[in-house]
């Protein structure tokens, strides 16, 4: 873990009492994942060491929360919501288009390692359905086939 990551985690630690470092574990794992793309066993160990936690307690958290990835998800993870409000606004068209265009199914990575497709539960933005997020951060709403094609072009 380099100094930059440590600084980011330290900022999170300030939110909690000094003897409650574990409270920052979700944030610390998110910081690691943003830096490395996904969480390896070594990453889990590093976070455990830094927060004085048993490794298993960190792994429990990493496996419980859906946005953590314990396997490679390529350069761009596209998480698309298929829950009811998105389903009613034809998220299945977008899903089928993406699967066809990228030649992958859910939870697979394209051969060039660029894209991974994930089926997501509700993201709490249903007014903009159908929608997806890129690498857990940037959200794209009111999707249609053209917008998806444009997005794929922009993700270099």
């Amino acid at each position, binding site marked *: 873990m380099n100094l930059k990551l440590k600084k980011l985690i330290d900022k999170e630690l300030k939110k909690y009492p000094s003897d409650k470092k*574990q*409270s920052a574990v979700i944030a610390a794992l998110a910081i690691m994942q943003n830096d490395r793309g996904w969480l390896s066993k070594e990453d889990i160990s590093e976070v455990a060491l830094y927060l004085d936690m048993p490794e298993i307690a960190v792994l429990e958290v990493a496996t419980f929360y859906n946005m953590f990835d314990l396997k490679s998800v390529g350069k761009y993870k596209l998480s698309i919501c298929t829950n009811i409000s998105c389903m*009613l606004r034809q998220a299945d068209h977008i899903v089928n288009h993406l699967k066809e265009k990228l030649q992958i199914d859910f939870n697979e990575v394209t051969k060039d390692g660029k894209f991974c497709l994930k089926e997501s*539960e509700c*993201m*709490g933005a*249903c007014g903009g359905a159908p929608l997806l*997020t890129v690498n857990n951060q940037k959200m794209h709403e009111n999707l249609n086939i053209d917008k998806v094609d444009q997005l794929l072009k922009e993700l270099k």
Partner: protein
Amino acid sequence: MNDVVDKNIQLENNNKQLFNICLRTSSLKNPGSIKTYQSIGGYEQIKRILKNNIDPQQLIDEIKISGLRGRGGAGFPTGVKWSFMPRDYDGTKYIVCNSDEGEPGTFKDRDIIRYNPHQLIEGMIIGAYIMNAQVGFNYIHGEIWEEYVSFEKAIEDARKAGFLGNNILGSGFDFELHAVHGYGAYICGEETALIESIEGKKGQPRYKPPFPATYGIYGKPTNVNNTETYASIPWIIEHGGQEFMNHGVPNSGGTKIFSVSGHVEKPGNYEIQLGMPFRQLLAEAGGVWKNRRLKAVIPGGPSTPVVPANIIMDATLDYDGLAQIGSSVGAGSMIVMDESTCMVQALRRLSYFFYEESCGQCTPCREGTGWVYRIVDRIFKGQATLADLDLLTDVSKKISGRTICALGDAAATPVLSFIKHFRSEFENFIKHGKSLN
């Protein structure tokens, strides 16, 4: 006949409108900035409270008069909840804002955070003053990253302006507020799971009692309220509880945001005066899309029972109005379904959601939600028999009421209400092995 006449008179006399309280900055330029909020009188209430050292009990009484009820779905009176916090406790007390909205159809807290974060912050400061809490957290849903970042900035701006930190505005009152980012677990919207999550654990709900007011974060007294609840507070303190109450109807004071999604022309958030007729809100949302007919509505999110069109069309949107038709306000997450909707497919998706999001702690929910999903999936794939419908009902009833938290009940609700109102559609699907829609 008389019933029909009475209902028509009632609707004609109803003059409820859209009215922005929580979203009152949304039409202004740079709605989320501290400058904009202060331009409409923002932070004046906490200034007045601190300057005059107003008795917290007086403020709680005002909130009780307002009729404000927890906007996250439970609908518990806020003033009463706040009075549960022990005032004389000698140690750190916490307040938590629950912005972990992830129940399908729910997206109101996101707009409060985007467009009016400072009203939420002022509401939390007032709450902290009333409950004598020193530290607050706003737990924000994992998938809305941009809102988490913008809220961190809003906290910074409030701190720079002197509204957060030690000795706020020279009053001797200390309050620190932090944003916490969830990472994709619906269950963390349950208040004790949220507390576990803040402690850095899996979000598995705790047994109650003890309630968070006595044993919350790190075992300290903790209050948890929804974003919309906190954001309503500054307006109530400014205008008085009675004025807020007057915007709604008896037992349902004030305004409430309904997040309308699905088959309408204009999906989005609509803050309404409680008691507005459903058909009026539907019209505000542009009506059913593509000139189609309405089939059904889930009024408050999937944990509230689905209602067929003919029943909801004459209902009013308030706690009693929706209870009368066998449903509930919930979080105001209104999912609208047009005539083309296959109810088997809709239920299949909702059942998968609860199966995926069960935390796995209680056997009836962990096993039952999977069982329910597999049966509905079997129907959807044309492999079910009519006996499966009774099995589905039976399994759902055995989840309900047998779990630590309400997720089990929430999982059973769509199953029981979909079959109650659309049984023939399910039977036809089973008989023909496909949707007849």
